[in-house]
């Protein structure tokens, strides 16, 4: 009787210590423009804070922006924190200044996609639409 209305919900988060969130904000905007609901939590998030927000907000995916060089620590830490909170099914993707060999390693370890600095916002929006499925 009532109309259902599934929408993708994405958490855009900025873990660690670097203080640039322009990229994260641009991505958040782009994902909203692509019709998704984007929860943005601001700077300096710990993996545990990100995982808690992802659980409370029941998001389908978490997008991380990491410019600090700590991506090899932070991506696995967020994935681990999500698993610990029973949210291992949440898709993790991200972007930043990340060397190719690290990208390969991250993709092997549960990160669904890494966008390099040249990626367009349309590309990111499209990837989310194509790869984050709406269950139910």
């Amino acid at each position: 009787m009532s109309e259902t209305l599934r929408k993708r919900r994405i958490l855009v988060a900025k873990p660690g210590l670097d203080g640039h969130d322009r990229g994260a904000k641009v991505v958040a905007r782009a994902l909203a423009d692509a019709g998704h609901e984007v929860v943005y939590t601001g700077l300096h998030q710990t993996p545990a804070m990100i995982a808690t927000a992802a659980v409370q907000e029941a998001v389908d995916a978490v997008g991380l922006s990491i410019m600090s060089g700590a991506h090899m620590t932070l991506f696995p830490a967020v994935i681990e924190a999500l698993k610990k909170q029973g949210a291992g099914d949440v898709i993790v993707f991200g972007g930043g200044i990340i060397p190719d060999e690290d990208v390969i390693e991250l993709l092997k370890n549960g990160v669904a996609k890494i966008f390099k600095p040249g990626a367009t916002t349309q590309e990111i929006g499209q990837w989310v639409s194509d790869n984050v499925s709406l269950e139910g």
Partner: protein
Amino acid sequence: MSRIEKVLEGDVRSAARLMRDLDDRLPGAIEELKALHPHTGKGYIIGITGNPGAGKSTLVDALITLYRQARLRVGVVAVDPTSPFSGGAILGDRIRMQRHASDEGVFIRSLATRGQLGGLSRSTFDVASVLDAMGYERIIIETVGVGQDEIEVMKTAYTSVVVTVPGLGDDIQAIKAGILEIADVLVVNKADRDGADRAVRDLFQMLDLRGVVGRQDVEIVKAIATQGTRPESGVADVVRAIDEHRERMGAHEIQRKTERAMAHIGELVRGLLADRANAALRAQGGLEGLAASVVKREQDPYSAAESVLKSL
């Protein structure tokens, strides 16, 4: 264990998924919500509304801190607007509240309006009910920042707090602003700015002019929410004003709850009817065909609308 049982045990993940399904309006979720109803009615629901940029989220953040110091568990429902163009939304209220992210006594949920007017989403009531059933003792609902006619929150909350700031354009704004009429507590935030006392005076004067029966006891509180829980922030005064309103309302609790239930049921009837009307409209091939016939003067708009309703 069923999802309902998990929610009642306080399982955050299950509750969050249920909220999602309610927001997405899955019929099964509404059945689950029905089962939760007997467990609701204990949490105290506070509405926070006000102009964009008035500092609502910052105030909510400080309120959470004070309630946590009093060992109360706090649920927050924060609403942001959906873009009418893309259908997407940026939900940014958590930014100011993230320091509570690792506190298990705090559950923050962001919602997009999804086309609903009045500063709330259609699911706000339902999400607040889930928090209530989970045993959160204070449930804070933060509306979209709109300003002049956000009255939905008044129907949802037991105490409505309206946040404004100095210098919004003098007394004429204070007289115009319809939301001031719904306030149980008025907060003049950013009170370290010029014109704070003037704003308070204008608000007092406006309340005097109104003299609306039963609403003379509105309290006006100055606050600097960015100062958090420091004594000079005034946030403790906001908490006290909310508590005092709550005590005053205690005598009329059943009446207030009945009014709230009336508003909610009315809202649901209208919403469900709108859903059925939309379904009927789709079954008849949508608006376009009807519009074409109206443009060609084959029928008038009222007859077109009535023809849709007849098939309900």
